[in-house]
C-alpha cells in the first residue's frame, strides 16, 4: 500500500462512513493514520470530557461535522445535578479561534448558553446544521442569533430541550434572503411564535423536507403551511384542535390530500380526536408515527388510526393503547422494526398500562422488530421466552416494569430466565435494560450469552458482587454500564480495573461501594476520571472517612485528566 499516492488512500477511505471503521483504519499504520486524519470530516465524541477541543482540532484540521455528548444518560432522570458540567462553550471558543470550517454541530445533554449560540453563529461562515438534543441553558435569544447570522442554515433541530422562551420573535430573525432551510424542528418550545413569520419562512424555503411545530401553532396555520410545502417528508403538528365542521378543517382535509410525501408524522401535543380523520389519507404512506405526546388520543381513536398505517416501521406510542391496541398493531404493522411504548402516567401506576400480553402479540405479528422500549405493568418469564423465540433479531431491548422489583406476575419467580432467553436468542443484542425481580443468575446469563452487548442498564437487581462480576468478565464488547440501587460493592468494582479503560463509562449510584474502593481504583487507573457526585451538605461527608458509602460514582476513560470545570460537589479522586 506504500506505493499508492495518498489521494488514492483518501478516496478509498471516503467509502468508510462509520466512525468505527475510520477509527480502525487510523490504527493500521502511521501512514494510514496521517491520511485518515487529514481527510476526516465527521467526528463523534461520546464523552466531551474524554478529549480536549485543542487535541481534536490538532488531529482533524478538516473537521466539518462534530457530535458531542455531555452528561451521563441518567441525567435524563434527574440523577445528575444541574450544574454538573458538560458545557459546550469551551468547544465553540476553541473551534472559533482555529481555522476549522465547522458546518454541523450535534449536541446531546450539554449545557448551551445564548453566548455559545451567538459565538457559534458568528464564527463559521458555512455553518449549516445545528441539532440539540436534551440540552439546556439557552433561550430563544440564542436561537435568534442562529437564525439571523447563519446565512446558509439548512437544519435547526431542537429535540426535547429545556429552553427559556422569551418571545416568538426569533423566527422573524431569519432574513428574507434565507431560503436554504431543509429541516426545522421547534416542537419543544413552550411559547408563542408569530404565525405570519412562520408562513413566510416556509413559503421561501423550497427545500423544506422536515418541519415540526410547537403547541402554539394553530390548525389554521398548519393548513396554510402545508399548502406551501407539499413536498414535506417529516411533519410534526402543533395544536391539532379545531371545530371539525369548520371551513378551516375542511380546507385542511383537502390540503393534506396533496401531501403525498409525508412519511414521518408526530406532534399532536394538543389534539381533538374528531379532527383525526383529516390525516387518514396519508396513513398508508407513513413509516414513522410518534404519538407519544398525544395524550388526547385514547383507545379506540388510536386504534382506528393505527389500523390504517400498514407500512409503519417505527411506532412511538403511549401505554393507553392497551394490550388490545397492541394486538391491532401486531396484526396491522407487519413491517414494524421499532416500537416504543411510554407510560401515560409516569408518576404513578395507571390502570391503562400494557402487560406481557401486548408484548407477546407484537412479537408474533412483527417478526422484523429489532428495537424495543416497553414500559409495562407486569411481565412473565413465559412471555419473555416466547418473545425471544419469535424475535431473534433484537438489537435494543429495553423493558421497564413500572414497579421495578416485581416478580413474574404468574409464578412470582424472578425474571432471570425470561431475560436469559432474550440474551441467548438475540445474538446481535447491543443494548439491554432490565427490570423486575432479578437475581445474580440473570447476570450470569448475560455474561455467558450477550457477546455483542455494548450498553447495559440495571436497577434494583442482583444479590451480590457476583452479579456485576459476571457482566464485567463476560461481556467483551461492553462500553457503557449504568447501575442504580444494586448490592454491588468494592469487590466487584475493583476486580478488573483495566476493563474500564476499554469502556466509555461506568455509573453506579446507591450501590454498596465505598469511598475507599473508589480511591483505590482512582489510584490504580490514572487514565480514568473517577468522579464522586456528592450532593449532601459538604460538612456532613468527611473526605477522610473512607468507609462511607458512595452515593453516585461516575467514572470514564479520558486522555486529558481530571476536568477543570468540575463544581464543588463533584470530587475527582
Amino acid at each position: 500500500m506504500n506505493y499508492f499516492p495518498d489521494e488514492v488512500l483518501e478516496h478509498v477511505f471516503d467509502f468508510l462512513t462509520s466512525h468505527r471503521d475510520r477509527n480502525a483504519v487510523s490504527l493500521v499504520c502511521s501512514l494510514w493514520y496521517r491520511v485518515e486524519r487529514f481527510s476526516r470530516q465527521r467526528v463523534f465524541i461520546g464523552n466531551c470530557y474524554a478529549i480536549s477541543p485543542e487535541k481534536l482540532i490538532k488531529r482533524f484540521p478538516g473537521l466539518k461535522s462534530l457530535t458531542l455528548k455531555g452528561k451521563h444518560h441518567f441525567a435524563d432522570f434527574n440523577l445528575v445535578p444541574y450544574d454538573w458540567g458538560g458545557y459546550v462553550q469551551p468547544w465553540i471558543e476553541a473551534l472559533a479561534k482555529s481555522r476549522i470550517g465547522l458546518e454541523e454541530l450535534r449536541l446531546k445533554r450539554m449545557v448551551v448558553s445564548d453566548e455559545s449560540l451567538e459565538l457559534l453563529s458568528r464564527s463559521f461562515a458555512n455553518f449549516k446544521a445545528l441539532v440539540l438534543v436534551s440540552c439546556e441553558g439557552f433561550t430563544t435569544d440564542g436561537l435568534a442569533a442562529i437564525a439571523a447570522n447563519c446565512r446558509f442554515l439548512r437544519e435547526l433541530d431542537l429535540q426535547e430541550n429545556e429552553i427559556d422562551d422569551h418571545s416568538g420573535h426569533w423566527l422573524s430573525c431569519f432574513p428574507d434572503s434565507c431560503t436554504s432551510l431543509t429541516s426545522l424542528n421547534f416542537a419543544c418550545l413552550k411559547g408563542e411564535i408569530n404565525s405570519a413569520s412562520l408562513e413566510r419562512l416556509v413559503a421561501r424555503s423550497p427545500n423544506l423536507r422536515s418541519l415540526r411545530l410547537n403547541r402554539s401553532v394553530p390548525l389554521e396555520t398548519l393548513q396554510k403551511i402545508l399548502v406551501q410545502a407539499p413536498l414535506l417528508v417529516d411533519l410534526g403538528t402543533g395544536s391539532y384542535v379545531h371545530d371539525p365542521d369548520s371551513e378551516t378543517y375542511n380546507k385542511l382535509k383537502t390540503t393534506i390530500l396533496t401531501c403525498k410525501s409525508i412519511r414521518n408524522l408526530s406532534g399532536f401535543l394538543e389534539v381533538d380526536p374528531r379532527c383525526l380523520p383529516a390525516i387518514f389519507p396519508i396513513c398508508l404512506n407513513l413509516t414513522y408515527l410518534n404519538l407519544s405526546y398525544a395524550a388526547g388520543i385514547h383507545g379506540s381513536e388510536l386504534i382506528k388510526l393505527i389500523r390504517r398505517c400498514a407500512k409503519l416501521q417505527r411506532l412511538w406510542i403511549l401505554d393507553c393503547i392497551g394490550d388490545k391496541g397492541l394486538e391491532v398493531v401486531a396484526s396491522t404493522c407487519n413491517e414494524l422494526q421499532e416500537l416504543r411504548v411510554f407510560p401515560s402516567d409516569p408518576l404513578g401506576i395507571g390502570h391503562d398500562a400494557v402487560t406481557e400480553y401486548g408484548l407477546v402479540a407484537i412479537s408474533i405479528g412483527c417478526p422484523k422488530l429489532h428495537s424495543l422500549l416497553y414500559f409495562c405493568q407486569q411481565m412473565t418469564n413465559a412471555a419473555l421466552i416466547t418473545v425471544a423465540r419469535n424475535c431473534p433479531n433484537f438489537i435494543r431491548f429495553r423493558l421497564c416494569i413500572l414497579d421495578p422489583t416485581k416478580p413474574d406476575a404468574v409464578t412470582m419467580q424472578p425474571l432471570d430466565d425470561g431475560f436469559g432467553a432474550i440474551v441467548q436468542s438475540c445474538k446481535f443484542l447491543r443494548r439491554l435494560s432490565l427490570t423486575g425481580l432479578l437475581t445474580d443468575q440473570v447476570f450470569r446469563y448475560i455474561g455467558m450469552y450477550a457477546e455483542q452487548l455494548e450498553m447495559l442498564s440495571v436497577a434494583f437487581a442482583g444479590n451480590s458482587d457476583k452479579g456485576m462480576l459476571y457482566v464485567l468478565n463476560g461481556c467483551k464488547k461492553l462500553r457503557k454500564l449504568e447501575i442504580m440501587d444494586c448490592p454491588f460493592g468494592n469487590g466487584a468494582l475493583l476486580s478488573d480495573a483495566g476493563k474500564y479503560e476499554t469502556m466509555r463509562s461506568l455509573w453506579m449510584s446507591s450501590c454498596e461501594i465505598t469511598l475507599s474502593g473508589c480511591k483505590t481504583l482512582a489510584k490504580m487507573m490514572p487514565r480514568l476520571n473517577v468522579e464522586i457526585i456528592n450532593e449532601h451538605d459538604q460538612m456532613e461527608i468527611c473526605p477522610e472517612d473512607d468507609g462511607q458509602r458512595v452515593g453516585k460514582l461516575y467514572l470514564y476513560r479520558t486522555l486529558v485528566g481530571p476536568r477543570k470545570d468540575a463544581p464543588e460537589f463533584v470530587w475527582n479522586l
Partner: protein
Amino acid sequence: MEGCMAFDKELNLEATELRLGLPGIKESEKQPSSTIKSNKRAFPNMDEKSCGSKDSSKASHAQKCNQEIASPSKAQVVGWPPVRSYRKNCFQAKTMEAEAAGVYLKVSMDGAPYLRKIDLKIYKGYPELLKALEDMFKFSMGEYSESEGYNNGSEFVPTYEDKDGDWMLVGDVPWDMFISSCKRLRIMKGSEARGLGCAV
C-alpha cells in the same frame, strides 16, 4: 442534620407519616432516613435525596426537613421510573390542564323557573364571572368585600357548592382554587344568605 433529627423526634413524624407503598415491599425494608452515610434506598422510600436535581447541590438542612414533613402524594424514588424529565414535565402540565379544563356548571337562581349552564373556563376571574351572572339573570349583587360579603343592599348573593358539599360564598378563595373546587352555583336570596357574609 442534627437539628433535623431532633425535629423529627419531637414531631414523631414516622408514626404519623402517610405513605403510599408500592405492592410487594415490606415496611421492614425501610431505611431510617436519619442515616446519613447509608445510600441504600428501599423502594419506594422517599429519602433525603429526593429534592430534585436543581436544588440538591445546595440542599440545606431546612430543605431536607421540609422534605420529611411534606406528605408525598405518590411514593417516588429519584431516577424512577426512567422517563426523561422533559416528558414527565410535559405530562404534568397536561394533567394540570386536564383538571382545569372546560368546566360547565349549573347555575340556579332562587325564584327562577329554570337553571342555566356556564363554562367557568372562559372567565379569567371573579369580576368577569359575576358580571356574566348579573347579565344572565338580570340582577345586581353589589361589591364584594372580605368582611361583609356582598352588600350594597343587594337582594341576591352568589354562592357555590364545593367538593365537600358545603355552600360557600363566591369570592373568598383564589380564583384557581375556586374553579377546581366549584361543583355548582346558586344565586341565593339575600334573606337566606345570612351567615354567608351578607350584611344585614
